[in-house]
């Protein structure tokens, strides 16, 4: 009988009249959501709403100013992929950028982390110094390297001087179409690779030393040790960073904008620099928005590949 008199409130009306239920509701639902609300609302306002608007904007011919907005369907996308040759060039540059960043920094970082993992004395010092370029602002890094790559006063000129040559190494690496993009990638990588190295090093240091001892007893040489103990040991972070770097390659902007603005003659143009110019300098907001959607689709596609491969249970 006592149980019956304390029966839990079931209808909404009963619940609202029940003091303890109300207090519980307040403590477990209302207050937590009040805690969550500020950050969530800011995020929805800054990211979610504009992202949806971006998709709609990409289907219009809006210039970015004025009231004249016409729905044009997929016209912007058709133009991007079938008419705009500069877009094809930019996309190609993004792919070249991706190939560079999926190889050079990974090789440097893996090689360096392997050496660093074996060093006991001075390890922390190396780690800190090698990480310094990563904490520098892009505006500073690009200023340093613009000077260092100066054809008259930079490293190239100094090498020519030492070797008694003229204008062999001292050329405008950033000003020539054939070398501009890769020079920017080199500079960005100077800043970036130490970060990758730190991630790999941390993963390597968590590999149990017994595994290395076992490999030594089995007579493994250093390459076999790396191939069969180190690489499998750091595989999760290695694969994850492959995905992240592939995505970042389609978002690249800062270093290119700061060093060449996409020049000379579009030689170092990528989708993001084009988008920026279209939307903010050339009054083609709709077209720029379409490029933003395309970038996002590429990024989503890369994530999809990795998720599917993982789902399939491939051993990566």
């Amino acid at each position, binding site marked *: 009988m006592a149980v019956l008199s304390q029966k839990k409130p079931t209808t909404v009306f009963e619940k609202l009249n029940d003091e303890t239920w109300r207090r519980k509701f307040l403590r*477990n639902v209302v*207050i*937590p959501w009040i*805690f*969550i609300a500020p*950050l*969530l609302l*800011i*995020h929805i306002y*800054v990211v*979610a*709403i*504009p*992202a949806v*608007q*971006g998709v709609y*904007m990409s289907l219009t011919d809006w210039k*970015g100013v004025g009231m004249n907005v016409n729905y044009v369907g997929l016209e912007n996308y058709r133009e991007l992929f079938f008419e705009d040759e500069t877009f094809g060039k930019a996309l190609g540059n993004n792919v070249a950028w991706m190939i560079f960043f999926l190889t050079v920094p990974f090789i440097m970082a893996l*090689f360096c982390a392997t050496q660093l993992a*074996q*060093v006991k004395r001075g390890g922390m010092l*190396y780690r800190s*110094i*090698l990480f*310094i*370029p990563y*904490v*520098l*602002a*892009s*505006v*500073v890094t690009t*200023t*340093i*390297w613009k*000077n*260092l790559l100066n054809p008259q*006063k*930079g490293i190239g000129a100094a090498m020519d001087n030492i070797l008694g040559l003229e204008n062999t190494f001292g050329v405008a690496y950033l000003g020539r179409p054939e070398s501009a993009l890769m020079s920017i990638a080199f500079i960005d990588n*100077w800043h970036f690779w*130490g*970060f990758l190295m*730190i991630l790999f090093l941390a993963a390597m240091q968590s590999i149990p*030393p*017994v595994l290395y*001892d076992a490999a*030594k007893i089995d007579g493994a040489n250093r390459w076999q040790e790396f191939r069969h103990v180190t690489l499998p040991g750091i595989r999760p*972070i290695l694969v994850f960073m492959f995905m992240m770097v592939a*995505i970042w390659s389609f*978002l690249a902007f800062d270093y290119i904008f*700061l060093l060449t603005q996409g020049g000379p003659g579009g030689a170092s143009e990528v989708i993001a620099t084009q*988008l920026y110019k279209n*939307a903010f300098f050339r009054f083609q*907001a709709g077209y*720029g928005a379409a490029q*933003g959607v395309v*970038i*996002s689709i590429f*990024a*989503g596609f890369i994530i999809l590949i990795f998720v599917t491969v993982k789902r399939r249970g491939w051993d990566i």
Partner: protein
Amino acid sequence: MTAIGKVSLRDTVLQRGHSRERSRLLVFNHTVLLLLTAFAVIPLLVLAFNSVKTNFEIGQNPLGPPVNIVSENFPNAWERGNFATTMGNSIIYVVATIAAELVFGGLAAYALARKKPPGSDLLMLYFLVASTIPLWMYIVPLFVQINALKRIGIDARFLLIMVYVAGSAPLTIFLLRSYMIDLPTELEDAARVDGANEFQVLTRIVLPLTKPGFLTVGLVVGLGVWNEFLLALTFIHDPNQFPVTTSFYKFVDRFDRDWALTSAGAIIIIFPVMVLFLALQRQFIEGLAEGGIKT
């Protein structure tokens, strides 16, 4: 038992007397590491050298150490680069973003880690998906939105801070939530028994115990804002509101040939970061590694 087994195994391996091979390996290790260290440091050294040379000396000796050290580049750059204003702006951006991020992020992470109100899973999914949306997807409409707010008189600096806070929200939530979930609940329960309310539990118990998490988020977010270029370039157009990065970008453009001046300006920008980095190396490196993975 296993520990002892491990040690003795290691010892037997080491006792096999590869000591000469080991030392040869170490020489190789250090050679590689020193070369890479030089690659990282020399460009910075050249920058530091040039910041204390005259332009005349840079013309003759653009890469080597200075023959005559001069210090006037720094006050010159400070003055002409308008650093008094822009440094102040950058400090405002950094401090306000960190503060808002930690307060709002701490509250949200606490609610998600401990109270798990209905809808939490959906919210985590939202932030997970949102963290993969590139800035390029929404920068154009966001620009329109922000401009509309600027036109009705809202301070552009406030709006930029809001954009920064939103940008690092997913990272903050994931990081702080994982720190809080790892915390045993007994202390919080004890505090509640003693009559503490939710807010007190958060500020008196959870906060002090998850300080490392907050420090990590603060460092990652703060460094990101100090170095941030693209958003500041897009949303701040009044030179008096420029952070150091966009202001320096215009400064380098204007004094393109004046390497002494721009080098000194660059040193001014990286100085606060370097001081903080040297003081908090471990937290910086581990925090950025953690933050980089979670984004």
